[in-house]
């Protein structure tokens, strides 16, 4: 039984352990390299590349859109637009300007803002200005950052992600995490430290 399994086994009913997809989080391979290869495959019209990008980042993107738009059907529409645009614009992706996750979230932000503004472009020279809901836009900026950060959590090892989740979402102390999971306290602390360090490194890489 893995530590994640153990945590799930002892979690109270209804308590989610980690609904972020951590299936890819165990890889030792730097995600940056994998992203670059995936971007290259998207640009070369590899049929599996879009599916892989969706598998990797669809959940985070959709979470952001639902969180921002507060309307699931609209978020579903926009989600498709985002990944269609990713596919269409893949040849223009420049890895030097940010990770694939950042690019996807940038597209998602723009499409979400379009929705929030419900912006009907006015004729050039029209005295009617395009109405901009600045507060909603500002909120979107904050949310996209939060969700981009949430996307980084998926790059952690599952054991690290688990202790971070239990600490910062379930608000357990490290001692309580150790007690709940049966993992030695020293190991919990080590995973906490390595998880935080890895997140710091990923933030710097972004």
């Amino acid at each position, binding site marked *: 039984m893995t530590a994640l399994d153990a945590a799930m086994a002892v979690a109270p009913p209804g308590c989610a352990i980690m609904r972020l997809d951590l299936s890819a989080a165990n890889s030792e391979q730097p995600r940056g390299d994998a992203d670059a290869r995936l971007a290259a495959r998207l640009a070369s019209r590899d*049929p599996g590349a879009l599916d892989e990008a969706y598998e990797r980042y669809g959940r985070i993107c959709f979470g952001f859109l639902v969180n921002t738009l507060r309307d699931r059907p*609209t978020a579903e529409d926009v*989600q498709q*637009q985002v990944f269609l645009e990713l*596919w269409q614009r893949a040849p223009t992706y420049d890895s030097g300007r940010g990770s694939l996750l950042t690019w996807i979230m940038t597209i998602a932000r723009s499409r979400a803002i379009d929705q929030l503004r419900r912006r009907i472009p006015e004729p050039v020279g029209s005295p009617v200005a395009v109405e901009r809901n600045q507060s909603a836009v500002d909120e979107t900026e904050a949310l996209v950052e939060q969700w981009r*950060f949430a996307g980084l959590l998926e790059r952690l090892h599952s054991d690290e992600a688990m202790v971070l989740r239990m600490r910062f979402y379930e608000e357990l102390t490290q001692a309580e995490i150790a007690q709940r999971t049966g993992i030695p306290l020293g190991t919990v602390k080590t995973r906490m*430290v390595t998880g935080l360090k890895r997140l710091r490194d990923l933030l710097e890489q972004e």
Partner: protein
Amino acid sequence: MSDRAEERNEAIAAYLMGELDEDARAEFDLRLQRDPELRAELEAVRPVVSKLEALPEEAWNAPEPPPLAVPVAEAADAQPAPSRSHQARGWRWTPARLAIAGGVAALLLGVGVWVGTLVDDDAAPADLGAGQSIVLTPVGDEGSARGELTVAGGPGGRANLDVSGLPPNADDYYEVWLLGDRGLVSLGSFRVDEDGAASVDLELPVNPARYGSFDVSLEPDDGDPSHSSDSVLRGPTSS
């Protein structure tokens, strides 16, 4: 990692997460005052802890996304998407074909309708028929510009847009949109030739009837995918 370094890092984490008791915290504060390296290490980790503490509940419980509705197998057989420096005349539109989730479901149910009609939309006006043309008229200063969008037949949801009279522009490009109360959907971008003309094949990834207008905008090549608000042509989605 040495035991000392590990101890330092664990102390930093415990300090930032508020897990030190009063005495231990006071002692750590003293160490911070004396040890600039320790302070630097702590400040490097602090933003990470702050971001984790600020994550909304939704971000820890991201919802299951809908199935991807871009049929990449078909798209892979089509031509690559154009670069922005590509001249538009004779250029074929980007290959991706978006069938929205409702449309896919309808297809799976064997409903023999093409994309323009398969979206569940109670309030939608009549869908565009094959061969139907829509005239796009100038917006703002583009008085001599004109566009005609003709819906193609078949199940793919395609249309052809012929434009003329648009100023050629080496730096910027034109983009075609559906717009309405639901928001905006980009149908793709193009450039015109030296005569200001272009003929562009479009995919219609959503039902145009759900949107009010076709719109052509002039877009700066600035990497921002949102609408520039500089529309040059527009026409209704129903003739």
